[in-house]
């Protein structure tokens, strides 16, 4: 077909991305007793996989499907439905910007502009040095501190466009590991 068509029948090896290692799979299997069906483990499994790989690669989707005994498309279906999951690789630090009504009224739009200007990227893009990605969410449920944003899992409250310089260079960003419980903590050796 000479007109424009996307070929979905094949996926090149380099597009498949990284896969899950045994520790991650074992972690996922540890969730099986919690639910009566294996399918119900899909959402926790995706969280674990994203913690481990940074995003959900095509190979990870296939492996998860195999692990949970699902058709592979079912994983794709769920991954694309939820905004939390990335289907392409992202930076080491991800900024989640709130764009709910309160945040916009309180100056969220300017924060977003400032962010795009400083990082030079659009939504769902990554800076060339692989450090930053950003996305917007409809509401972070921190409206009393609007406008607010998340860097990895740390909430920054009452951020104005002028504060961005300070927030972006904050050395704390580099070790923003939340005190995780054992739930979604990907096994340590798989951390990127």
């Amino acid at each position: 077909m000479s007109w424009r068509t996307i070929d979905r029948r094949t996926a090149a090896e380099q597009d498949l991305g990284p896969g899950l290692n045994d520790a991650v799979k074992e972690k996922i299997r540890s969730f099986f007793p919690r639910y009566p069906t294996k399918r119900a483990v899909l959402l926790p499994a995706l969280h674990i996989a994203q913690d481990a790989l940074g995003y959900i690669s095509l190979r990870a989707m296939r492996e998860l499907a195999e692990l949970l005994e699902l058709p592979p498309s079912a994983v794709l279906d769920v991954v694309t439905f939820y905004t939390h999951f990335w289907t392409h690789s992202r930076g080491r630090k991800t900024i989640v910007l709130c764009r709910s009504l309160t945040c916009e009224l309180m100056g969220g739009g300017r924060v977003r502009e400032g962010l795009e200007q400083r990082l030079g990227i659009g939504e769902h893009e990554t800076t060339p040095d692989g450090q930053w990605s950003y996305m917007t969410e409809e509401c972070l449920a921190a409206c009393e501190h609007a406008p607010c944003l998340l860097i990895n899992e740390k909430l920054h409250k009452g951020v104005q466009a002028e504060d961005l310089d300070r927030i972006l260079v904050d050395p704390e960003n580099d070790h923003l590991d939340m005190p995780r419980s054992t739930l979604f903590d990907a096994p340590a050796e798989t951390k990127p």
Partner: protein
Amino acid sequence: MTFGRVLMRHVGVPNSTSLAVYKADGGYAGAARALQMTPDDLVELVKKANLRGRGGAGFPAGVKWTFLPKDRTVTYLCVNADESEPPTFCNRVLIDSDPHLLLEGVLIAAYATRTTVAYIYMRGEFCEQFHILQRALDEAYAAGYFGHNILGTGHNLECYIHRGAGAYVCGEETGLIESLEGKRGWPRIKPPFPAVEGLFRKPTVVNNVETLACLPHILTRGLDWWLSIGTANSKGPKMYCISGPVNRPGCYEAPLGLTCRELIYGADFGGGMRDGKQVKAVFPGGLSMGALRGDLFPKPPDGKVDPKQDYDELDCALDFDDVRKYDLLGLGTAAAVVVPEDADIRDVLLNVTRFYAQESCGQCTQCREGTAWMYKIAQRIRAGAGRRVDLDIIEETSRNMGMIPGLSICGLPDGAAWPIRTLIQKFRREFEQRIAAQEPGAAQSLIRRTNAAAYELPVLHGRAVQPAGGTFATPLDVAPPR
């Protein structure tokens, strides 16, 4: 006001998330009391308390529990902690400061419904809250409040936290159930209702965080205390949220029936507007419930005040009934966002339509296509290429979606239609002023070239729509694309 905070009594208390602090303050006494009653008595008690669900619809929790089939073998309890309604954050505040109150509520509800497995469905954006709750849960397990043979009563309860991943529609109970089952959060068709066939096709109860947090207090403080709070049909304390440009944005607990004006201007609550601005509009129950006119309503050009239309609506009492008099969908989450006088109403419309276009799940046609269309129109109006007929189209579209006229599977399109419709209805004059003031040529670049005729066709077949009027008197001269 002599109302003592109960749901929020631990806000600001140091180390309040620990079991020790919670127990020192009489924690888990309600659960202990409940475990001594029979489940049926407990259900009866909650029914008498007329505890109406705090999630938005206000359905009595006790009645919901009685819908469970009598001969069930397995029951699931789902806790709806997917608090996604914009400007709502009371669940977050509650979990932040008092996770054990929620867990105690879970325990009581699980006992009342004879549930042995409970899932707390928590939205993906709650990161810190997830860890707080998980720690609290681990503590409670260790202390024997969860697990096998709780406090020696022979009742078992496993409780798991299940994290969502960013989908508003998973706050709908069947959407939540689907999501828990590892599918996309497409709400299910009803019947069967979750109480009969819910999670994993078993009878299921879905309750909101705040609803469950009320249970320990009903048990420890008694029914009389509970019934003494609030208005005739809306009993108990409620957590109100206020955000936007007010002096003290935040979450406040008050008996049901607080008025909107009190919430904004009351010294105990919002503390008045920042910089002495006036209120243009308030969304008093989360976005979905619709907008109220503020102090500053658009004045008619001739200065004549129409008593039917030109009044502010801040005296609306925020309970389950009074809101309907002001053409709101319901109480919702009682989370108010204040739109100040200097905000452009078109921005508000754009934000609201974008939210629903973004969050519509895509199942029902009216909602999937309608929300996206309204967003496109709102974008165009914001860009300065609006027409007066667009307001009619948006309003008509908002009437043609939702569960109330039976046109959709879940209530999300109702929630989408209400704020948009009330915005257009209550602020139409301002929209029209904005449209009248815009650049006449602006529309050209934004209107599909191949469908120029539609620009002049405001009439849907068989249905009279207001004459177009529009901004532009003459038809657009549309050049063919080269």
